[in-house]
């Protein structure tokens, strides 16, 4: 088994996949707490479908690096959705649902009509479930992912206290002069970037799991914002590592293996909470 792993790690693309995978898992877990508690998870879900549509367009137009197209489109949608939510006469949920299913439909249609390869359903499947995409990333994508992930991490650490204040009590934050709208916008943009990154790892349908599971697991075990965030990062990295290694050894799809690991960890955390471990 060890020998098999060593053999695989002689390929540079496997090493890249592992490094990028871990970085993506780390930064996707950090905003999870904010997302869950601010009831933003539905935005995350909608955006992942938008990203799928954009990905389809990029693939049809044969861009060398799809991230270059998907990223700006998703960020713009995030800003639009947030703006909408703030002065919503029509309920935001409906707008997001419409946007996300349209993106899915148009994306799938485009992929079928202008198919760039002979294996359409394979392409769709890997975009939705990320079956092998982490191993087939171009070198540009790998660098882009790594740089963006590091930028997201740095930004998160820098804004950690502000994010706490705005998430915990937005009205109070505004009252003491924190520009909460600006931070909400930054959070939405960060979510968009993270979704595009995570799409490479687990595909667009499973992104929410990658973002939300580690935070929910950590919230079973810890009860301070800092500890929950750190624990959620660690759990996410461990699950990504385990998922990637298992998928190499067992030949399972990378994305779903990682998410399965996240789900198992969540169940373990629930049990641990039930029997009173980790209540400090």
């Amino acid at each position, binding site marked *: 088994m060890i020998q098999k792993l060593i053999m695989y790690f002689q390929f540079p693309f496997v090493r890249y996949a592992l490094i990028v995978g871990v970085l993506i898992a780390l930064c996707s877990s950090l905003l999870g*707490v904010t997302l869950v*508690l601010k009831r933003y998870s539905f935005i995350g879900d909608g955006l992942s479908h938008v990203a799928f549509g954009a990905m389809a367009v990029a693939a049809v137009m044969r861009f060398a690096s799809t991230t270059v197209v998907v990223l700006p489109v998703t960020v713009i949608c995030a800003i639009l959705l947030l703006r909408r939510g703030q002065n919503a006469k029509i309920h935001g949920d409906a707008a997001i649902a419409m946007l996300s299913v349209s993106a899915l439909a148009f994306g799938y249609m485009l992929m079928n009509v202008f198919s760039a390869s002979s294996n359409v359903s394979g392409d769709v499947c890997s975009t939705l479930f990320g079956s092998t995409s982490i191993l087939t990333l171009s070198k540009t994508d790998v660098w882009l992912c790594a740089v963006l992930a590091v930028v997201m991490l740095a930004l998160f650490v*820098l*804004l*950690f*206290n*502000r994010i*706490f*204040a705005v*998430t*915990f*009590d937005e*009205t*109070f*934050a*505004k*009252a*003491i*002069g*924190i520009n909460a709208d600006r931070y909400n916008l930054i959070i939405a943009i960060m979510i968009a970037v993270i979704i595009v990154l995570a799409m490479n790892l687990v595909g667009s349908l499973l992104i929410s799991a990658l973002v939300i599971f580690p935070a929910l697991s950590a*919230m079973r075990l*810890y*009860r*301070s*914002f*800092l*500890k*929950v965030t750190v624990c959620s990062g660690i759990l996410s990295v461990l699950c990504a590592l385990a998922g990637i290694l298992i998928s190499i050894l067992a030949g399972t799809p990378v994305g779903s293996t990682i998410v399965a690991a996240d789900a198992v960890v969540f169940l373990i955390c629930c049990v641990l909470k039930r029997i009173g471990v980790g209540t*400090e």
Partner: protein
Amino acid sequence: MALITADHLKLGYDSQIVASDLSFTVEEGDYLCIIGENGSGKTTLMKALLGLHKPLEGSLEFAEDMDQNEIGYLPQQTVIQSDFPASVREIVLSGCQGHWRNRFFYSAEDRATAKRYIEQVGITDLADKYYSDLSGGQKQRVLLARALCAAVKVLLLDEPIAGLDPSASENMYRVIKELNGAGMTIIMISHDLTSALKDANKVLHIGETNYFGTVSEYLKVRTEDLGGAK
């Protein structure tokens, strides 16, 4: 000069007016109690004082040496999700962010401030506990300590005893009175007339007819009104 001067304020949303013709002043060291029925515009007035709501008409002026962001604010507890993962220290410290200018991390001074107010509201033994584990009265004190970290001169309290049991309420009033005694200006929104007016020196009654004046005058006017009604 008065810290806060409101002159013929009219508050509302779009075409709906919730309160009009509000005039009052808050001097340094005052303990102002704002009372009124549900829907009379107390909460809107509070938002206007915090700069979250723009008055439709009238003016709201602050003393020159005072910034609107320097009002410490104690919200109604129901606003905050009780299962939020946060330690007492994290919450109290977050009040210090009001004084930040291009800063992103807490300074030693911030930590000292937080510690001082944690002691002042009497929750030193809870400093390392978690918000979700606390009782209603304890949570309220944590939020009070956070408000104090943000407050420079004025503390704005929105129904501070809503949902508290009698002994917790009494404790809360005692802490507020002590703060007022130490020089903090207090503006309190309340339902609970009798005990709220015990410590206050001024009253603003919002309703069909607004009243602003000292507590003793207000009580006299009110008894006369009641006497007339009988």
